[in-house]
């Protein structure tokens, strides 16, 4: 950036030099012409005097006027006749103009500035000329005198620019050095003190990002710690069960113990899957806004996967309205519906009723999952979405994560979820509302 500023300064200075040159050139030309015309006026006056006296303008004697430098002149008539020439002046008239005026003429190898002046009282005309070199010489002397200060100023300016930018970006460099030598998980804020206004915004934005990342990291760590903690109990069960199996003395005991071990392993595997699902729904996971899925596709999969456990309990899952579209990707919808339906199947008694209804209301999709199991008491509903929270009295086999997953999905889709009791009898009615446009702040409510 300093280089760009210095380059700009150079260009400006060059432009300045050019403008100065033109100004000086113009001004010197005017002044030189003025001087020349003054000399011409003087000579003409003398010639007029001689003419009125009756003398031929200039006697054979040497020119009475001594001109400075190499100025030459011709005294002549308006008609074009030359009566007198200064030494070295050409025979032909220098200029053709009759009135007062100056032009550039070339005589031989040299360029001259020639002016002519007509007398007002006599028919005399004077042509006067001086070499252009003198002007050029003066111009170059002047420019040389100007150039030195300009160059000095340019150098000074460049140095100042360098100094200022160096100081201005010192805090930025300091921050860069700080960030470079940090450990991987150090997300503390950078020091924005002494930052100039221009880079302060960057510092603040950086700190904002660091804070958000630290929050994400902390949340992931909490999740991992929670998950590890929750896995201890199932693993303890597996360990003890294995030792029980090893100690069994009869084949029947061994068989029994190994069956229990298998069930334990299945249950722990289920917990693992739920944890994985939940971790994938954490912030940073992609949930493409605006994606919609036809409910039928997902419902078919869910019902198919839950068929064995439904069959074991002679539970029939009634579905309706699956031709509707629902916001969300097939993956998250599968998780949502599967967890809710699985909970219902697990909690109803044998032969119980589980139903899923999909509906459309204005710009929202409504998913209603109901069952005739024991339901969730009012007091428990606010805690029901907590991770690993098992509602007291709920059926065996859950991981405690189902509603957390459901809640997280609803949050990601910008929707709402409500837990309620049915109008008659016992049971649970879960109503999920998902908007078809992008997210608004989610609300979980317990009726």
């Amino acid at each position: 950036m300093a280089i760009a500023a210095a380059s700009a300064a150079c260009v400006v200075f060059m432009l300045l030099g050019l403008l100065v040159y033109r100004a000086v050139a113009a001004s010197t030309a005017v002044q030189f012409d003025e001087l020349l015309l003054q000399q011409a006026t003087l000579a003409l006056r003398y010639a007029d005097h001689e003419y009125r006296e009756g003398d031929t303008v200039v006697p054979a004697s040497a020119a009475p006027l001594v001109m400075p430098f190499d100025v030459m002149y011709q005294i002549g008539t308006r008609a074009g006749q030359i009566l007198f020439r200064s030494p070295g002046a050409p025979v032909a008239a220098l200029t053709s103009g009759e009135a007062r005026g100056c032009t550039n003429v070339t005589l031989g190898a040299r360029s001259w500035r020639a002016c002519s002046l007509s007398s007002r009282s006599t028919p005399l005309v004077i042509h006067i000329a001086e070499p252009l070199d003198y002007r050029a010489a003066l111009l170059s002397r002047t420019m040389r005198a100007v150039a030195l200060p300009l160059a000095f100023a340019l150098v000074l300016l460049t140095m100042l620019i360098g100094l200022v930018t160096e100081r201005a970006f010192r805090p930025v460099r300091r921050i860069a050095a700080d960030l470079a030598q940090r450990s991987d998980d150090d997300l503390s804020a950078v020091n924005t003190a002494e930052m100039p206004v221009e880079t302060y915004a960057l510092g603040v934005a950086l700190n904002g990002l660091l804070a958000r990342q630290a929050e994400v990291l902390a949340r992931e760590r909490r999740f991992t710690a929670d998950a590890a903690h929750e896995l201890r109990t199932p693993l303890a069960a597996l360990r003890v069960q294995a030792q029980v199996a090893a100690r069994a003395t009869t084949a029947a005991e061994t068989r029994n113990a190994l069956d229990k071990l298998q069930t334990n392993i299945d249950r722990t595997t289920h917990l693992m899957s739920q944890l994985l699902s939940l971790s994938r729904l954490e912030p940073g996971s992609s949930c493409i806004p605006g994606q919609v899925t036809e409910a039928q596709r997902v419902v078919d999969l869910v019902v198919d996967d839950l068929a064995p456990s439904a069959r074991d309990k002679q539970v029939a899952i009634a579905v309706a309205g699956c031709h509707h579209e629902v916001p969300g990707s097939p993956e998250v919808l599968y998780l949502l519906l599967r967890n809710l339906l699985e909970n219902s199947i697990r909690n109803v008694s044998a032969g119980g009723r589980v139903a899923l209804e999909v509906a459309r209301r204005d710009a929202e999709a409504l998913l209603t999952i109901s069952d005739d199991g024991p339901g969730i008491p009012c007091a428990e509903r606010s805690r029901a979405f907590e991770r690993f929270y098992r509602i007291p009295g709920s059926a065996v086999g859950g991981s405690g994560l189902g509603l957390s997953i459901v809640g997280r999905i609803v949050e990601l889709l910008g929707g709402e979820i409500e837990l309620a009791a049915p109008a008659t009898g016992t049971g649970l009615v879960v109503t999920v509302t998902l908007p078809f446009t992008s997210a608004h702040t989610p609300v979980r409510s317990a009726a």
Partner: protein
Amino acid sequence: MRILLVEDDDMLGDAVREALRQESYVVDWVRAAGAALAALSTSNFSALVLDLGLPDGDGLSVLRWLRQNGRATPVVIVTARDRVSDRIGGLDAGADDYLIKPFDIDELGARLRAITRRADGCAESVLTAGEVALDLRQRTVTCQGEPAPLTAREYAVVELLMRRAGCLVTRAEIEEELYGFDDHIASNAIEVHIHNLRRKLGPRFITNLKGRGYRVESSR
């Protein structure tokens, strides 16, 4: 020996109960702090296996209740809380031992033996009374050096009487030691056990204090 198992997880609770029964313990299993307090109010237990993460409160509340009421029942905490601060907290609250899940069931067994031994003031692992020797670690009984084949309940009776050697043990206390909440007790079950023990370990081993209870004479 009668153990109260307080654990809310079904799989683990079932497995631990099974394992402890294999070691001839009588196990009562409850799944919540409230139920644990109810059980402790009504019965005496030789030891408690206490989980801390209970659905209706912290297991430490059960422990505190015990200690505040002057009950010295040995308690081994079995929990997923693995921080050093948690362990210190548990032991300071009055637990006799602290195991972190997952654990070795053999180690649980050994620790139970250790804490119940301490409670009896008995540091040895072998109890003797007359010609009968009881090995607490192996959970075996020998009479005159010969191993005596005892059923689980018979062993439990012998262990109880020998731990309280020299002291009177009432019929009710023996019943409490032997039977959990869910067990049916036949009306003369204790007499049958005593009778069998006399047959196996000698007639003078157990003294019947008519109407009051039983006693094994101390060796000392």
